[in-house]
């Protein structure tokens, strides 16, 4: 299993380093798209919330880890900080914290789509280097 993951990651890194930054952004978008898919597959609102919350937490952890790495630039760190703020807002809204109304159970599928669409727009505006993108995806997959 571990060997399979390692091979997948090696291939992914190789392909992405050839394809460049846009491919890295695609992988981040896919991450949220996959979470939205899982949200829609279940009918249980508690599970839906759990899936969404886990996806935010995993990505935030990955961003925190990569931010501490000496391999990423100051600009990347600032970009990741912005990304984290966006994620925290989503997480707060899901739970109804920090002035947000809690997302109603009946709207969780729509909220999952909102996250995908907002992240697609966020990755357009937050420019990260290929190294940073690679590390984020790598760590988000491993966590």
């Amino acid at each position: 299993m571990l060997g399979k993951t390692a091979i997948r990651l090696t291939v992914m890194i190789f392909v992405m380093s050839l394809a460049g930054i846009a491919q890295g952004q695609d992988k981040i978008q896919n991450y949220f798209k996959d979470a939205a898919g899982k949200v829609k597959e279940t009918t249980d609102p508690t599970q839906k919330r759990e899936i969404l919350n886990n996806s935010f937490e995993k990505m935030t952890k990955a961003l925190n880890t990569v931010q501490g790495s000496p391999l990423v630039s100051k600009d990347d760190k600032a970009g990741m900080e912005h990304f984290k703020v966006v994620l925290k807002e989503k997480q707060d809204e899901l739970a109804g914290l920090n002035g947000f109304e809690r997302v109603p159970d009946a709207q969780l599928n729509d909220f999952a789509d909102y996250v995908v669409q907002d992240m697609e727009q966020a990755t357009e505006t937050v420019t990260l280097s290929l190294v940073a993108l690679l590390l984020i995806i790598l760590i988000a997959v491993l966590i």
Partner: protein
Amino acid sequence: MERESSASGRQSRVLPLGHTCLLNAFGVFCCLALGVVLSSCSSPPPAPSETAPEEVNALPSRYVLVFVIHGDGGYLYHNTDGKKYRADEETLISAKLVAERNSQAEVFIYHEKRKRHFLFLFPRHDGEFYYYRNGQLLAQESYWRDQGQSRFDPEIELYNRFRAEELSQSKRFFLYFGHEIPEIDGKGYDASYKDRPFIIHGLVDGLKHFTPDSTKFDLIVLSTCFNGTPHTISALSPYARYIIASPGNLHLSYFDLQPFEALDIGLRDENVSAFAKECARQSFERLTKDIQTEITVAVYDVDRVQSFLNSVDSVYDHTLTTLKDKPSKSIEHCDCADDSAYLQPMMSDGIDVFFRPARFGRSKHKQDHSGWECLRLLK
């Protein structure tokens, strides 16, 4: 007939293509590989080229459409079923449909693609040009972008080479699809040419050459995020009668091209203003079905918005100068109506806005949008 001009660095085809090859599969592969290598390795093209389309029907067209589709960046999006789409490729399909369905139109389509290499070594063309007249594809050329002083030099060279005589009453349209065209900085707009900046004045430079004899475009469509700003609309004003743009985020599924598929019907009474509003309304309705983020589509009547633009011009310029040296992360977009410096009685003159707030997030209760987007420092 198929003609290739690899010596000029371009792969040119004057259609129709009737060429068949009787080589076996291996032979075909080798031919293709060699062809690509030869054409890709050649140096960037000197203009002009010899590929004028002899078969072109010289009758003037009632409509002229210029499409610029930027695809050199992150343009992936997903629909609500999780299906992947590439915004530029989807737009190219729609633009071709527009070109094929209008029997009295001259259509120029430029697809600006990511720079790629064959076998990791040999650069491949990063632009694809399609020329249609009267519903027929008359020419298709691969070209090199990033040539010359101005960003749109290669596109303008192709435009001048192919364009036919226009009727004085021809309706002219310019449609741009891509990410937000920045007003300051602009570096990194193209994934393949990171150091080459692209700002709104780069587009204006191009428009100058797409509008011979100072003829304005009847309608300019900016299918981009955040370009419904006083500065951008003001910069495009000398070249357009009407502009459709989004002052907010625009989902990558972009504005609808369907109304452009039947220009004879949409413009039967020659009313560009009504046509522009109908285009905006259709786009808005389609986007509101599946998109959860904010949707704002605005139509600007260029003559009628001038008094507002004149009154806020210096304020906006001052803001741009102030923000010029600030890191992009510290700048945010906002509705100009939320900034007292832009609150003018004539703010809504000459503008039609279709707005629905994001269904989630801090702004979900926002009631309306002025149709003008501004920039400010993050609080």
